[in-house]
Structure formats: C-alpha cells, structure tokens
C-alpha cells in the first residue's frame, strides 16, 4: 500500500463490548455509514478502532488474515483513506440534499381547528379553515414546480385536526393524484391525526387518496390517556375510540406510527399500555409505537415545563422502552440512519402551509403568525418574512464547535435547528439540544437490540416477508383498479355529522 493510500480509523466508530454470549467479540457501529458489525476483539485492538484518526501501520496489513477484514472495514467506513475528510464529506452530502433537491415535500394544514384539547399541545387553535383561493394557489404552485422538473411529491396532512376538513383533503389529493399521472411522478402522503374521526369508510377513502401512514397518539392506558387527550367540546374520553380506529386502519393495511408522548406524569404507566397493545396483537401488525419527547417549547404549553424530562432522563427511559418494545415483539426500532438531510425546516422548498396560505418552516410555529416566512397569496415578498426565512436557511451546524467534534454528529447534525435560530415572536422556547443517541445508554441499547435481532435471525425473516409483501402488493394493485371510488360521499357525510356534533356541542 502506497503512502497516499494509507488507512486511518474513522472518528465516528462506537464500540460495545459483548459481555455475555460471545466473550471475545464486540459490536462496532459507525455513525457516518450506520454500518454495524460483530468483530473479534483481537482486530478491535490491533487495528486501534477506538482511536479516531489513528493511521494503520503497513506491517499489520501484511499479517495473515487481515487483508479481507481491512477491506470489509473500509467498505463499512470504519477505516478510510488517511486523506479523506469525513466532515467535508458530510458537508457535501448535507448541502446537496439541502439546496438541490428535486422532491416536493409539503405539510398542508387544511384547518387549525381541533376537536381535542390536549394538555401539552404547542398550538393555539384559531378558527381557521383553508379557503378556496388558497387551495387553488397551492395547486398552481405545485404544478409549476412539477413543470420545472420536480421528481416526486410527498404531502403530510397536519393541523389542527385534518379530518375536520376531509373535503379539502379529498379535493386536493385528487388533484395531486392527477398530477402524479400527468407528470409520471410518485405521489404519496401521510397524515398526523388524533384518529378519533376515523372509521372504515374514511380509512378506505384515505387509502384511495394515497395516504400510506397515520401518526396517531395514545398517551398511556385509558385512565391516563383520557386525562391528557380529551374531546374539546365536552371533555369526553377518547381512548377506546382511538384504539378501535387504529385497529381498523391496521386491518386496512395503512401503517400506524403510534406516538406516545412521554413525560414525568405518564411514563410509569406505559407498561399497562403495552399490555393493551399486545392484547390487540398490534405487534404482529403494521403498528409502530415510539416515545415522543414532550417539551414545553411554545407559550401555549410553557406551563408544562416542570413535568418534562431532561434530555438524559428521556434517553434513559427511551432505552428501557425500546427494549420493552423489542421484548413484546414490535418490529420497529429506531436504529440510526445517516441524517445528513437535516430537518425539513432548514431545507430548501420544504414548507408547512397554514389554512390562510401562510408559509412556515417549522411545525411548532404554525399557529404563530409572526414566525411565518411568506404567504402563497402574496405577490411581493415582505421583508419580515424574508428575514424569518433566512434565519432557517442559513442555519449551519458545521459552525457549532461542540457538534463538529462530536462522534455522533452524522446521525444528529446539531439536533433541532429551532434551538439555534432566533425567534422574533418571543413565543418559542427551544433549548439547544442533542439527539437522544448522544447519551451512550440509548445508543448502546439500540446496538444490543439490533444484535439480538441478528442472532435471532430476524433480518433473514424480514427479507423473506418483504418479498412476500411485494408480491401481494402487485396482486392488490391489480384488484384495486377494479374497485370504484364510491366510498367518498359516504365518508364525507360521516365526518360532517360527527365533527359538527363534537365541535358545536
């Protein structure tokens, strides 16, 4: 090997010594490539994998058995050319993703109204519903972007509660589906909903509208959830109805990301919730629970601050929780992935669009008009909006010293950008925060779980199941072409009846 091609150790290796089944092995994770291996400790120490930047001697590369190992470690990014600057590589990837994407990714809020009154909600809920002129302008803008070469369209439906305006969701989705055919681009959508207004007809309609995934929240067993997530109109309980609707969505093959907002007041009750989810056999279906970190980030929820976990507390509790998910047989796990994409809030062309056409970069700001970065109906940009936009788009985690030196930087990228930008409204309270992986307990637990899955043969089973699903999908698509769209009218009627009852009571 020439001097030019000498290898060094990555600055992003994480090593966890196995102390049970395989005494002489460690598992090694690289935060840049997210590769994970089991490696004999002899190689860990002789190649100095724990020493970032350490250059490998030529002598060791000539030793018997090392050639293949070194090749594989290089493929995984654990070793790399001594002249390769990992940070520059990350910056290149990040900038490419951030400023030159051809994908359209929008969050649309058909309404800011909500039929729930959750105790920790960060939004105010003014009586605002999307107007026809905003709908039309939105469609026009998306069409222009597609005509100028955008290659895919993803919509997240958000609110308020988006199902209070199912008619808007339906109208816009049909236009997007038509674009997908006309411009031959993929279109898919997800929806953040409280799940209360779902029923089989609505679910089938949403399926036809290309919604592939719901995010729905349950905050604990019935007595706990019902105290935190009540109906706005009369404070009625919501747990049973939501659980039933998650079950329906799952039967109809729509994935459910099940958010559980955790703080000091409910974490200890989550075993009981997991038992309920287990009784419903959600662990065998496409329902994926995960823990949401409740933070008192806006004036609307600032009074909850004393009940929120610190970052470290949350990491410890989340480590326990993911282990329980694994033990219960849930298939999802938050194994880190390269997140050089940065948050949508600091990515070009990514916006949340409120019912009156205001554009926002961050979900947390959608009910704070002073934080807007524009309005789709404006012909001329306002300087205040441009100032707001610039603060997001010039956010640069590569300038944060502690981040540049951090060995999980590739999977964190400086945490939530909202903490580092100045909010002129004075209504956002984000502290500079690191990703949960920063706390070794969480990253180590994740590595252990993935290793357990590997030992159990889960990955092979997943591959087989995936092939089977893909074959089924092809069959289902052919069948669904024959189905009519008659669900629509019935579903709209159902929602209108139910929502007006809940809101107008």
């Amino acid at each position, binding site marked *: 090997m020439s001097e030019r091609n000498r290898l060094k150790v990555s600055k992003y290796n994480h090593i966890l010594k196995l102390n049970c089944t395989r005494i002489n092995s460690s598992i090694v994770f690289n935060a840049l490539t997210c*590769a994970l291996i089991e490696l004999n400790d002899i190689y860990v120490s002789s190649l100095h994998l724990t020493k970032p930047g350490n250059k490998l001697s030529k002598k060791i590369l000539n030793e018997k058995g090392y050639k293949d190992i070194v090749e594989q470690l*290089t493929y995984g990014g654990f070793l790399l050319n001594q002249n390769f600057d990992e940070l520059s*590589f990350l910056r290149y990837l990040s900038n490419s993703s951030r400023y030159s994407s051809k994908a359209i990714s929008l969050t649309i809020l058909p309404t800011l109204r909500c039929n729930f009154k959750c105790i920790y909600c960060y939004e105010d809920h003014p009586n605002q519903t999307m107007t026809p002129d905003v709908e039309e302008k939105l469609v026009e803008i998306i069409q222009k972007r597609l005509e100028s070469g955008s290659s895919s369209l993803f919509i997240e439906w958000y609110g308020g509660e988006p199902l209070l305006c199912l008619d808007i969701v339906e109208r816009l989705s049909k236009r997007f589906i038509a674009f997908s055919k006309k411009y031959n681009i993929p279109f*898919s959508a997800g929806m953040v909903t409280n799940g209360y207004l779902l029923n089989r007809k609505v679910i089938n309609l949403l399926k036809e509208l290309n919604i592939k995934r719901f995010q729905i929240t349950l905050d604990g067993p019935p007595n706990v959830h019902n105290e935190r997530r009540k109906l706005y109109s009369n404070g009625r309980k919501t747990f049973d109805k939501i659980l039933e609707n998650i079950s329906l969505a799952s039967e109809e093959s729509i994935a459910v990301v099940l958010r559980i907002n955790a703080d000091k007041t409910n974490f200890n009750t989550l075993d009981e919730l997991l038992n309920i989810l287990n009784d419903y056999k959600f662990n065998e279906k496409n329902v994926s629970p995960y823990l949401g970190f409740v*933070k008192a980030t806006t004036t609307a929820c600032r009074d909850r601050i004393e009940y929120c976990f610190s970052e470290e507390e949350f990491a410890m509790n989340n480590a326990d929780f993911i282990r329980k998910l694994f033990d219960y047989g849930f298939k999802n796990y938050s194994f880190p992935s390269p997140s050089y994409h940065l948050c949508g809030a600091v990515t070009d062309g990514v916006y949340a669009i409120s019912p009156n056409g205001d554009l926002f970069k961050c979900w947390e700001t959608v009910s704070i008009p002073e934080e807007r970065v524009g309005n789709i109906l404006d012909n001329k940009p306002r300087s205040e909006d441009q100032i707001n936009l610039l603060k997001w788009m010039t956010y640069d985690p590569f300038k944060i010293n502690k981040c540049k030196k951090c060995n999980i930087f590739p999977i964190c990228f400086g945490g939530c950008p909202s903490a580092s930008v100045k909010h002129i409204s004075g209504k956002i309270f984000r502290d500079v925060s690191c990703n949960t992986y920063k706390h070794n307990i969480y990253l180590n637990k994740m590595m252990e779980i993935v290793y357990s899955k590997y030992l159990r043969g889960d990955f092979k089973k997943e591959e087989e199941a995936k092939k089977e699903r893909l074959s089924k999908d092809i069959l289902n698509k052919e069948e669904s072409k024959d189905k009519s769209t008659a669900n629509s009218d019935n579903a709209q009627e159902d929602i209108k009846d139910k929502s007006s009852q809940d809101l107008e009571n």
Partner: protein
Amino acid sequence: MNWIKYPLLPIALFGTFGGLVLAASCETEHGRCVDNFVCVDTKFTNCSGEKFVCSDVKGCEY
C-alpha cells in the same frame, strides 16, 4: 467478522456515481427505502426525528 447491518451510506460509492442520490438509502423508525430504491429528500420532520422520501413510492416501506 460478521455483518449485522450493511452501510446505509457506502463511502465507496461516493464519486463513482457523482454523489448523494445514488449513494444513499435510508432506514428510520417510520419507514425505509427498500430494494434498490434510494432516499432522495427529507419530508417535513417533527420532534420524532427524521423521515424520508423514497425515490419511488414503490420503494417505500412503512
């Protein structure tokens, strides 16, 4: 040595195909790109973490 997870971002590919799009795939708690489809962009995130858009809807598995 045993592979548990192959690299999601193979450095070896960088340069060969000109960078990001062909070099990356993704996997998150919310969904992942499967087979030969690749990650092309973020969609909006919330405090649950990053979510991704696949280069083709067919390649997205939730």
